Structures are given as structure tokens and as C-alpha cells.
């Protein structure tokens, strides 16, 4: 889904701090979600460098509290 080590020509890279690509096992009205096979991508910059770096964390099963959700989309279409 998200490319790593891209440059910051796209301002969105600076706004999007992280995303999670996963299978939704369960959700509710608050957007609380249980995700399986989750890959979390964290975007960051280092001082004096415009380069956007990213690192990933994997988790077999994770619970996300709904209030931190901004957007949900089909990962196949991103």
C-alpha cells in the first residue's frame, strides 16, 4: 500500500503519520475494530532531511479504538 523512502514532494506525507493495512475481523458504531494480520506503517522525517522514511510493525491481532480512525478504505484500491 504505502511506499517507503519517498521524498516529501507530496505534502500528504507530512500529514499522514501512520496507517494500518489489515483484515477487519470485527467493528462497531464507534469504528472500534479488531484487525488481523495487521501491518502498521509509521512515517517520519529526520532533522535536516526532507526525505520521508517509514518503518513497519506487524501484529497478528490488534484492537483499534475508534476515535483515532480518520479514514477507512479498501486496501486493494489504494
Amino acid at each position, binding site marked *: 500500500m504505502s511506499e517507503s523512502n519517498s521524498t516529501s514532494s507530496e505534502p500528504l506525507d507530512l500529514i499522514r503519520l501512520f496507517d494500518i493495512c489489515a483484515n477487519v475481523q470485527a467493528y462497531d458504531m464507534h469504528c472500534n475494530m479488531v484487525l488481523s494480520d495487521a501491518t502498521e506503517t509509521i512515517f517520519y522525517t529526520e532533522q535536516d532531511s526532507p526525505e520521508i522514511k517509514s518503518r513497519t510493525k506487524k501484529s497478528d491481532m490488534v484492537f483499534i479504538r475508534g476515535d483515532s480512525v480518520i479514514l477507512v*478504505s479498501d486496501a486493494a484500491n*489504494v
Partner: protein
Amino acid sequence: MSSTSNFLAEMTNSPVVVKLQHGLEYHGVLASIDGYMNVVLKDTVEMVENNKVRNYEEVFLRGNNVLYISQK
């Protein structure tokens, strides 16, 4: 029905711009909206400062992040 929810209901299936509090804009066709301002958009372009960033066939936006919804 109040005039605000009327306004939103009449906008379904028409092109809209949804701006989030973070500054991101989503230009797409309003598929659905509820009382929390949760929004589903189709054929959506994600924009930051008038730069096209990403495309979504279908996207759900959680209502608490919405700043405004405007008719295109």
C-alpha cells in the same frame, strides 16, 4: 426534517468536497452521510493544498474529522 439534514440529504449522489480538520480534502461523489457526519464517498481524489495525492474507489470518513462538506 431540519433544513441542515435536508441540505445534506439532497447532496447525496452529487459531487462534493469534504474537508477534514487536518487540511486534507476529498473530492468525490457523496454516496451516503449520517447524523454524525460520517461520510462515504465514491470515485474520490485526496487533495492537499490543491495537489492530487491519492485515489479511492470508495472511502469512509469518520464524522469527527469533518470540517465542512460543500457542493462542487
